[in-house]
């Protein structure tokens, strides 16, 4: 059962990383313009500026 002591923290840690990434993406406004994001792929020289509106 010692394996649990390693695997469970690892699983939780990975989950927490995912959650943190999700919250970060909300906070930086990445869900504000889903349709636009889909189309911006097609723009050749996407500008460096990533700030939201």
């Amino acid at each position, binding site marked *: 059962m010692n394996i649990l002591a390693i695997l469970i923290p690892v699983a*939780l840690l990975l989950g927490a990383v995912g*959650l943190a990434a*999700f919250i970060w993406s909300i906070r930086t406004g990445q869900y*504000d313009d889903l*349709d636009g994001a889909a189309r911006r792929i097609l*723009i050749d020289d996407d500008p460096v500026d990533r700030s939201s509106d």
Partner: protein
Amino acid sequence: MVEVALNSQAHGPNRVGPVLSSDLALRAIPVGVDEHALNLLVEGVHCANCIARIERTLRARDDVTEARVNFSTRRLYVRWHGVADVARGIVDSVEALGYGAIPFDPDILASQGSAESTALLRAMGVAGFAAANVMLLSISVWAGLWSDMDATTRDFLHWLSGLIALPAIAYSGRPFFRSALAALRGGHTNMDVPISLAVILAATVSLVETIGGGVHAYFDASVTLLFFLLVGRYLDLRARAEARRSAERLLLLRATSALVETGDGSLAYVAVDDLAPGMTVRVAPGERFPVDGEILRGTTDIDASLVTGESQPQGAGGGDTVFAGTMNLNAPVAICVGRTGEDTLLAEIVRLIEDAEQGRARFVRIADRVARWYAPAVHILAAATFAGWVVFSVAGWQVALLHAVAVLIITCPCALGLAVPVVQVVASGRLLKRGILLRSGDALERLAGIDTIVFDKTGTLTAGRAVLTNGDEISQTHRRVAARLAAASQHPLSRAVQAAFGTAQPPEDAREISGCGVTGTIDGVSWRMGRRDWCGAAQLPAKGTGSELWLSRDGNPLAGIAFDDAVRPDAARTVDALLARGYQVELLSGDRTEVVNRVGEAIGINQRRGGVSPTGKVARLRELEAAGRHVLMVGDGLNDAPALAAAHASMSPASAADVSQVQADLVFQGDRLEPVAVALAVGRQANRLTKQNVALAIIYNIIAVPFAMAGFVTPLVAAVAMSSSSLLVTANALRLKRGSSDGTT
């Protein structure tokens, strides 16, 4: 991808005029030390290329520090170095690219509040994380029940589950707890009460079980329940935000300022709300009159179709009264502001609308109707289970509580909380793809009950603009002359001539004489095209039944050109299809009876009335309602607005008057009438799916609840049954996406 192109071409001559306002500078918000920012609504953005063109052009300017187009909301955010007056230049750059740009009202912007949706999304993320991890641990426990897991390991896993689940529930459950508390404080109950009760009781009982080293813990069930319900709540919010956003987009298209002559002879832009009687306002051709007033200088033609339903332009000169909302067609005029505020024709219409709206409020959505008895039923069942086990069993109150909680979890209103919003989101997405904006949440349900459709004529069945009708009678030479003269003018009739005879080079000395027509020299001869008396044709018989233009050479009338308001290309087909599906179709118009009869016959509507006043329209709708009919009103004019508000459901074309669009449940774009049929079909289908989902949920409860009450539902069964029912109703809702069954594609 959802695409709505609010592009200017589709609106034709009815489009609200471009923003002339210099009040742009007032809309700029100061940022930092010497920077300003402006939010603009950009019309006509519909691909990646548009985004790139606008952003690159603006960023190429030295003073612009940031430019970003939000494609979903059609909003452009620009920030620049320097004074607020630069705003004009920025808007000009965007307009030079061929896009319409209108400043966002900061008040509307502030009220948009996406904070709620962000909070919900975050709660959903936390619940999702907790649900996945607790489920992972629970599966180990369930597997352990059949194998050799010892009590210590099981307790350890339970403790771990609780450690994840309890904070997650405390955080993610807040939207439900808050709403439930508010309902209880108000002395009534709503769907959030049983939800909160189920979640909190399940967590508490599980904690007690874990402390006591029990076999069953419901942590997994309570967090998954929360997760699914949050998904539904978020979708519901998004659907409503979408409806509100399209409403705001329409409001923004209004003219907000007027060009006023000040005392010292200079000109200034003044907000329409600040206009006072006695001021002199200049109105350019193609603009709508901002207020009721009297013409001081200038002669022009006025398009009053949006206000009265009258399809022909009318001449107006000094001393004539003009109404807010009518369009100045061909010459600049100055008007003296007459009545404002409460006294205008518009205010009168608004009063009629308010009266008409009374009947609307009675409508109750299916979800609310079900929720009304669902919530009490769930409470009674759970309480009965608890009481039953306490009285008839020796197992003790803890076990009784456990079974009561199982009942609460099993009866979770997922079908209402999740599947109904999914239907709504999918349906509004499908309508958007066809150029139909859904403006109110319950419009789809109301559409489903429709059995009678009442159309307005001008601008609804017809495109609301003139089309040349007697092209065959006119000789080749005259056609060429007419086309060249027409090229020198922007009058709607000139545009109709160009549309019929092709574009040509205007004669070099061509002049437009306002209120009369166009004159010019072609091959050494002086030609005129314009009003009949100006072309010397006063004695000749009228051409056709609508507007006309005459062509004269050296003062001799040679040919009359007739125009008519063109019927939308697919109007007859759409009306046929609606009749075939069993709808009763009627035509109510403010225009003259003979015109109404002609159009009605051409399209195939037998029930028709002309010369109907706004009050008359409302009265007719009331009559139909009293006869038990559910009416869909389709109209565009100011005169239709009260009827739109009075009808069971309503639609307007995107070219409609602002007031009408605000009243309408749905707004459709483009030149075709087909969206009416599409919307009705989607509404019916969405309603069918909603009812199916509610039925599925009830059947599921009828089967599962007895088991839960009898105490056979373990945490495993509860979690599986609840998740599978959620997935089932969601999958059913998604069938709408395929939607070929409506026969309109």
